[in-house]
């Protein structure tokens, strides 16, 4: 049922830490310990390397595509404590901005919804979360939430601009003033929600359920859904689905999706927000869907393509 349609030969020299498809699903950006970020054109099952971005001086942990209304923009964050924003202009990718305000490895980057302009959240091992806002003319405004997670922040994910309830009391016909919100997960085993109020970022909620580092968080896209939903996964093997039906956004209830045997590294929502992909330490991906009675059920498993894998290993061995 699940079939490999494309095995991408990334030619990365070390471990790949993230792979992200762009807004239109035509390009795939990967980043690796080998300090590079690569962009592949994956249209029609192809895999053409279109860019090899070098600029980081350490393993690159995560990449994030910005909304295309701002151009082709990719952000990457690295062990070298830097966040680099890359922009494609006339077919060539260049550094648009380099942020060096963190004191430790930057683990996660995520672009906010386009309604807010170009805004990037970065979570770092120094415990802080930075919010970089493009203000035009090569200028970026930096706001920093210090000590957001003690020991370190591992993941950030933005709330969709139109969160149910966020439109309350807006005069109709006028572009509503959305509240900027995002979720973060960290080494303090906490999932935290942040909200901008009067230009200042404040901790909105603190969600406790995990018993070990939170590895990834994902705010579900809100495509017609009446509730806000967040998925979080942790070193403790557990994946929680947090939902909030309260329009004020104050009551979040966790539901245990599943307890895996190994670390769960990633959660990723489908475009419509109704399927959750979960990848764990056993190199397996599972897909989950909520049934009518509110229970989450595994609808599919994906193991990585073994054939392709072994051939790569062989070449490595011969190299050594």
């Amino acid at each position, binding site marked *: *049922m699940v*079939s*490999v*349609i494309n*095995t*991408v030969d990334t030619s*990365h020299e*070390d*471990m*790949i*830490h993230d*792979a992200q*498809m762009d*807004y239109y*699903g035509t390009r*795939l950006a*990967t980043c690796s*310990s*080998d300090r590079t970020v690569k962009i592949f054109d*994956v249209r029609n*099952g192809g895999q053409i390397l279109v860019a090899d971005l070098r600029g980081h*001086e*350490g*393993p690159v*942990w*995560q990449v994030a595509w910005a909304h295309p209304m701002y151009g082709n923009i990719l952000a990457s964050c690295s*062990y070298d404590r830097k966040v680099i924003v890359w922009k494609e202009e006339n077919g060539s990718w260049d550094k648009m901005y380099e942020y060096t305000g963190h004191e430790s*490895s930057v683990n996660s980057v995520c672009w906010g919804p386009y309604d807010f302009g170009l805004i990037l959240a970065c979570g770092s*091992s120094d415990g802080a979360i930075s919010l970089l806002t493009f203000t035009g003319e090569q200028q970026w405004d930096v706001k920093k939430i210090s000590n957001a997670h003690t020991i370190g922040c591992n993941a950030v994910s933005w709330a969709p601009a*139109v969160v149910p309830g966020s439109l*309350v009391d807006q005069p109709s*016909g006028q*572009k*509503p003033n959305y509240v900027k919100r995002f979720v973060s997960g960290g080494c303090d085993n906490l999932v935290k929600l942040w909200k901008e109020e009067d230009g200042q970022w404040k901790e909105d909620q603190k969600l406790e359920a995990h018993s070990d580092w939170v590895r990834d968080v994902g705010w579900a896209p809100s*495509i*017609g*859904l*009446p509730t806000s939903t967040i998925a979080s996964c942790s070193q403790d093997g557990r994946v929680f689905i947090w939902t909030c039906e309260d329009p004020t956004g104050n009551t979040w209830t966790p539901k245990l999706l599943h307890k895996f045997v190994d670390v769960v*590294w*990633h959660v*990723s*929502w489908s*475009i419509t*927000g109704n*399927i959750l992909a979960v*990848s764990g330490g056993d*190199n397996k*991906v599972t*897909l989950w869907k909520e*049934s*009518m009675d509110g229970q989450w059920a595994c*609808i*599919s498993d994906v193991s*990585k393509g073994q054939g*392709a*894998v072994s051939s*790569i*290993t062989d070449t*490595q*061995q011969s190299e050594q």
Partner: protein
Amino acid sequence: MEKMSRVSTALGGGGGGAVSGRTMFCHLDAPANAISVCRDASQVVVAGRNIFKIYALEDDQFVEKLNLRVGRKPSLNFSCADVMWHQMEENLLATAATNGAVVTWNLGKPSRNKQDQLFTEHKRTVNKVCFHPSEVHMLLSGSQDGFMKCFDLRKKESVSTFSGQSESVRDVQFSMKEYFTFAASFENGNVQLWDIRRPDRYERMFTAHNGPVFCCDWHPDDRGWLATGGRDKMVKVWDMSTTRAKEIHCVQTIASVARVKWRPERKWHLATCSMMVDHNIYVWDVRRPFIPFATFEEHKDVTTGIAWRHQHDPYFLLSGSKDSTLYQHMFKDASRPVDKANPEGLCFGLFGDLAFAAKESLISSEANRKPYPGGDRRYPIFFFKKPDLTEQFAHVSSALSVFETGLESGRMDWFSRTARRYLLCGKPFAELCDHNAKVAKELNRPQVSTTWTMVRIMFSDPANPNLSAKLGTLPLMNSFSMKDMGACPDMGACPDMGACPAERGKEGRSDAAHLEPGTSHISNNDDNEETEGSDGQAEYMFGDAELDDDDLYSVEHDNPAEDQEYTLPQEAFPLRHEILDNPSAPEPLQQDKAESPHVSGGEAEATCLTPIESCSLISATQPLYSAHLPAGFFCPVVRDMLRYYAEQGDVQMAVSVLIVLGERIRKEIDDLTQEHWYTSYIDLLQRFELWNVSNEVIKLSTCGAISCLNQTSTTLHVNCSNCKRPMSNRGWVCDRCHQCASVCAVCHHVVKGLFVWCQGCSHGGHLEHMMHWLKSSPHCPAGCGHLCEYT
């Protein structure tokens, strides 16, 4: 010599024995510049500009043993840039002073001042001193003045001087393998190899780095490997055993490399620290040059000196820092960036495909391999026997695959196809529904298809399906309800319809259930069977619907009017017989409608022709209708259905039905929800690059916030026609000259409606007036003399 041995015994029981301890530190009086450990790993000397002390390494603490800075006014000879403890002579130390002096110290001296020899031959700071590994009396120094000097400690002067050709020397290291060879690194990026017996010329020179080479270190096992570190943030490993120095490994670190030290007993490992920015100590596996194997992050300022505690113990590292602390780091307490690193990447693509990158399994690739191919015999045998799992850090790579999830619900192909083919306007309501139902059916989405058909039946009026008629849906419903009430006391219609969303829910679940075992195709029949099984009352209604569907689609285009008749029974209202009795009256109506869909009188006319509607006709006013059946009779059902679709992630359906139904349903759903659906759908359409569809949806939407989306993307810049300056505010009155800017230059009235103006002189007016004027005169009608052009 007796005293020497006494000192060493007193300081920590010299020689042998397993090293034990824990991660610990002590505060120094001043920043350290360099540290060095005595051979038996029991003591460490810390040297700096204002410190020169010996500490004993005890199990759980550092104990200060000796302060070598003595005298009331310590001379600059005490200010150390570097220090080295002799590895054979336990009481012998050498320091490189910042004033250019090379000093040796004898701990065996009875006096408080242990200074032994003083060589003041260098003219500038001495950066490095190095004892020969096997020749007891031989000491080498490298200085900022560009010279390296070799001293015989039995003599008062240097025995030979090596010139680096005016380039500052940053490091000098005797080779472990070649008795007479030493390496020197320079600020210009070069590394030179010298033969100690030939001071006239270097044996070999190569450029190792861009910019200064701050440090170098020979591999402790005599492999002829030299590691160099430079300001270019790189550590390079050179094989010096060949005729040309060959770069065999290159590690790029985050900051410039100030010190490099091979890790004992680990062929591939080395430790580095930086003199700028970065306070951490890194241990690298040169085979995996991108990510440190381990880091020690204790220091709060730049680490200046690192030393492995014992030459055969890889687990203890000592370090001194500008933050005035001396640390002993335990390997087990090191942080391992790789353990924190995410080994997997996962991303849901737009089309429901899944990109997944995962680390190759370490174990499987390593299992068939020797721990160290071409392993060195010199390693203690236990090392081979117990490959420490925590020490495994070989090259790792990832495989990246894109998966097709194969789930109907997960894939998004249908989305763009549906979006492209749906009709949302431009045809009568019933036709739109039929068309969309057909599209859905062709894309194998029976549930959606059925919904469209249902929607049509619920809202269409066989007598008057004309979209433009405001209350066009009412007569049909009315007639229904009236017959209904009479013929069917149990109100059959309402509960049945009410049950629909729930049944769809079941279908939805059955989708999932079917998908798990591997069937991706769900036929309409399956669903209906399911429904039949679970809902006895409704069963034949769906059966009928199916049959009718088939008929419906086969004849649809030939005779739309007939369709309508046939589809009516799909509702499964108990009174379908009565509807079947309906004569073919709609036919003339259809023609009528097709020819003039906007004839306002058509409504009454059409209803006249339908016998069944005669009662409605008589009472052709709204109040009377609503007395029988309120306008929104089906609305709650449809509203719930739309909600259901939206919650399932199919916002497309919700919005499409919303648009097609228009006024019929709009008031049932609050504006915010509608707006949310619209924005979600438009976003999705744009992601799929369906610009035309998205534009159409924006145009058709009735939400203020949505329909203004297109307007906000167009900006008009206007100049005031009086003062010729840009209009800053939004109104039509210029805030500078306080006059209305939109006065027609021809008739001098304010223009309401189409306004045309010249971009050159900002004058303009009514479109017709301007056209007329400019036909006869090329000049601006305002008399400003501008030659306006109208094209």
